[in-house]
């Protein structure tokens, strides 16, 4: 890959008491790729996302986005630079409708400081309807956000991040909590929208089927370090990764939830 990385992390270190959540993380995210992060619970996957989005400050190291340092910026400022994020537990405005949630995200991008024009003005409404349609959420647009099933909540959460038109999107377990029957549908929708929008994505994922099918590269996290990094075919076949991280010795298709 010859293009400069979109995101570049060097030597990130962060310990909570004795637990090393990041113990020298070096990672380049290339423009346009889908990078999956796998690893057992407590390996520091979410910590990496939190450090990149300004929610946690590493004790050492540097993060550059589009060649500029972003460490020390507030989450808000990082969002404005073009890094979006979705959450393991969807962060929706529970008492608003899905349409209003989407419109608020659009308003956040365009500018919310207009106290007298309604949120659901024609322009915002149209864009919000289109956004929800891309995610297949048009059927629940008028439902309150807390009335949705988990799959729809996840998609709505990601739709709000996409409304900001990020160039990099960090997703924390986009499929956790989603019923097995919905899971592939949710991911397919998601991947299609992100590819169409040209968004580079980093996602934490426990389902190895999802990883094998949709990731361009896989980074394996273990105890605050990156154990292995490479294409999914290679990484998922690695015996050490299989034993230490995925938790299966013999060849098998069963996804591990750890």
């Amino acid at each position, binding site marked *: 890959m010859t293009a400069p990385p979109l995101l570049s992390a060097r030597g990130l270190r962060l310990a909570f008491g004795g637990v090393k959540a990041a113990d020298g993380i070096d990672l380049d995210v290339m423009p346009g790729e889908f990078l999956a992060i796998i690893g057992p619970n407590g390996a520091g996957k979410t910590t990496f996302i939190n450090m990149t989005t300004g929610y946690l400050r590493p004790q050492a190291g540097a993060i550059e986005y589009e060649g500029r340092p972003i460490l020390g910026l507030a989450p*808000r400022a990082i969002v404005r630079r073009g890094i979006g994020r979705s959450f393991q537990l969807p962060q929706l405005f529970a*008492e*608003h409708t899905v349409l*209003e949630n989407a419109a*608020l995200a659009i308003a*956040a*991008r365009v500018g*919310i400081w207009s106290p007298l024009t309604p949120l659901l003005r024609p322009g915002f409404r149209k864009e919000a309807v289109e956004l929800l349609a891309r995610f297949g959420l048009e059927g629940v647009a008028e439902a309150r956000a807390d009335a949705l099933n988990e799959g729809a909540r996840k998609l709505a959460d990601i739709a709000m991040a996409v409304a900001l038109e990020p160039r990099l999107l960090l997703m924390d377990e986009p499929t956790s909590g989603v019923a097995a029957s919905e899971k592939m549908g949710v991911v397919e929708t998601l991947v299609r929208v992100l590819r169409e929008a040209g968004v580079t994505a980093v996602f934490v994922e426990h389902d190895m089927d999802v990883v094998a099918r949709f990731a361009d590269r896989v980074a394996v996290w273990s105890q605050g370090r990156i154990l292995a990094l490479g294409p999914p075919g290679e990484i998922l076949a690695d015996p050490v990764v299989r034993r230490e991280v995925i938790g299966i010795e013999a060849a098998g298709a069963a996804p591990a939830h750890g």
Partner: protein
Amino acid sequence: MMSRRAEALLALLLVAALVLAAWAAPWLRFVLTVALARGLAVLGILLLLRAGQVSFGHAMFLAAGAYTVAFAAPAVPETLLLLPAAALLSGLSGLLIGLFVVRYRDIFFGMLNLALSMVFYSVLEKFYSITKGTDGIRVPPLTVAGVEPGPEVQGWIMFGLALGLALACAVGVRAYLASPMGQALAGIKTRETRLEFLGVPARRVLLFAYVLSAAMGGASGALIAMTSRHVTPQLAYWTSSGELIFIGILGGAGSALGPFLGALAFELVRVYAAAAVADAWQMILGAVLLAVILFAPGGLVGILSKRRGRA
């Protein structure tokens, strides 16, 4: 939430009933003017309620507006200047205090407001040489657009000002709450982290609402000072703040009309209950509030909109 038409209809009915009552019983006009003025302060509190924040000290802005009138009236006895000046000054103090208190949420937000209002109360009470302490300050007769009207006309003018301002603010608040800023305000209540990750500074969203609510409190205080022609530190006391919240719950937070319905009900119950059972009127108010909380959590507005919904 009420439909737009139902709300407009209710507002129209309310205005008609108020004008009729004020015309039929002149002594009631004073009570209604004060009720409308207080409703204005409660409307400000309603903005903060949208963000899930309860200010237990909002009477300080009401008192700031009232004392602005009391201090400035001898030099500038003009109603149409004093009223905006009071709103402006209260709004500015709201900005100053807001920069500090919007960093806090929930009980801390409420208690900080309470603490600051009690500091203000003490200042008003203790600095006798300036504020006349608990004796309070008499407001001299005021002019309206340069003319000093007789007491009867003055009463009508104050009533009209309160009614006009109440309507204008209710319409304004309604638009504000439907705007992205107002919706973001409601987002503070449910998911403040998401606001930050949308790139929206939640504190600034809350600060805007806080300044607005302080300015409305100031206008409310100015109207009360001009109507009662006497201001005392009692206006800033914590019980006054408590009454404003009481009215807010009584009226219901679901509509911009709630505060005014609540304030009218509050003042009327107070007047009639005090006349009927002089020693126990607070008990009656308490029972009314209890009944509202238990049986009509949407307040008076909630009861009315449900009625209409069923009909």
